[in-house]
């Protein structure tokens, strides 16, 4: 690994100024779970790392009646997994995080870093997408809030500017009669990166029709993506085996998996189809329970 300058700002403004000063040659650093690997491999060779861990406002999770859950970018995977505040409203987080990498990565890897890395083989992004989460981003000119889908542009490529920092993830309150399920499929060991990860959120209307439907697929395209055709097929329908099978087939078609060591393209499309069906069934059961 090439040596670099190591800077420790204590405010977001200071951090953004430092990033700006290096004009794209510095990187924000939090847990280092991702950066340590790509820097050792020489894929990234920043002149400086800006450690943002001393910035107090980026830590912690809080719940706000209006905005919902506000997750600081420096929240580690393990903190999200074990957070009472987060899991009281969104037990899906403990369910997802339990299987993320291993205990050591969960202790250092952060929610913000996970999203900002643009790593396509990941879990959290799909869950946030189905929950209509937004991300708050700070830069030298101020801050902005965007839907999480607009963060991801391509493999390891996000819409974050060189001098911007992802500061928070905002998850709005879930409407009543909503159910969420995430299924991660690993093709080798449980601690491997996922081969396919599917998240589904269903919200039922008064007549039991599927009112809000979100289907997010991970690891089967350059970025996590919403399966819009599958969502359209389900929207407004009553839950049933036929319509779920149609949506599952549509989702398997609208992604673009590549053949690699975790499975062939055809295999991954098959997995998407099965996971969409299974996740939809569980999400529906949970929505019914939350009457």
């Amino acid at each position: 690994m090439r040596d670099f300058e190591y800077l420790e700002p204590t405010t977001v403004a200071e951090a953004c100024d430092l990033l700006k000063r290096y004009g794209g040659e510095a990187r924000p650093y939090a847990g280092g779970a991702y950066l340590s690997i790509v820097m050792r491999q020489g894929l990234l060779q920043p002149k400086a790392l800006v450690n943002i861990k001393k910035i107090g406002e980026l830590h912690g999770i809080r719940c706000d009646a209006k905005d919902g859950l506000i997750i600081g970018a420096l929240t580690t995977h393990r903190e999200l997994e074990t957070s009472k505040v987060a899991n009281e409203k969104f037990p899906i987080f403990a369910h997802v995080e339990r299987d993320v990498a291993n205990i050591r990565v969960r202790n250092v890897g952060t929610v913000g870093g996970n999203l900002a890395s643009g790593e396509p083989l990941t879990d959290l992004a799909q869950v946030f997408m189905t929950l209509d989460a937004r991300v708050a981003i700070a830069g030298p000119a101020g801050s902005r809030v965007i839907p999480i889908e607009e963060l991801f542009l391509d493999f390891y490529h996000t819409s974050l500017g060189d001098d911007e920092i992802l500061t928070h993830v905002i998850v709005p309150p879930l409407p009543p009669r909503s159910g969420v399920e995430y299924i991660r499929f690993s093709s080798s060991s449980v601690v491997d990166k996922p081969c396919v990860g599917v998240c589904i959120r269903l919200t039922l209307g008064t007549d039991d029709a599927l009112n809000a439907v979100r289907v997010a697929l991970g690891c089967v395209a350059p970025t996590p993506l919403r399966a819009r055709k599958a969502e359209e097929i389900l929207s407004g329908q009553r839950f049933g085996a036929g319509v779920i099978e149609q949506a599952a087939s549509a989702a398997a078609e609208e992604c673009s998996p590549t053949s690699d060591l975790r499975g062939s393209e055809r295999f991954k499309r098959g997995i998407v189809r099965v996971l969409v069906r299974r996740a939809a069934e569980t999400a529906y059961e949970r929505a019914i329970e939350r009457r």
Partner: protein
Amino acid sequence: MANSVRLSLSKGSDIKMKKHIRLRVNGLERELEVSARATLLDTVRDQLGLTAAKLGCEMQVCGACTLLVDGKPVSACSYLAVDADGAEILTTEGLADGDKLHPLQEAFMDWGALQCGYCTSGFLLTAKALLDENPRPSDEQIRDYLAGNFCRCGCYGEIMQAVKKAAGF
């Protein structure tokens, strides 16, 4: 920040940044000079001579390099030493109480929970963190917590038994 930065000229013409850090390692205060890119594993092994933790996969997968930072298991091969400034570090050398081995070390010996021993330090520290967090874990909780530590000699059965024994089962 500024007071902890020191410039020192290396042999070549380039100027390298050395950082002054303080660690509490196995209960002892240590002050060290490290380069920004130095990993916690290299620092602990090369500067402090604590070689129980091993370099394995170098990508946070195998667990051979596990150290406890403020009580939590981390992959020291991928943890910057500068980032550990001010932290409490526990290595396997710090597990025993004088001549008295830690109950986990005793249990690993009783069960023969190792062959080559390369992974053992990582397993011991991870198991310690687990038992500190959850003194009476279920089999499933032990398996989940230790799932990120690999033993290529395949002593998993014995390791499970040893951790259970140390937990008082």
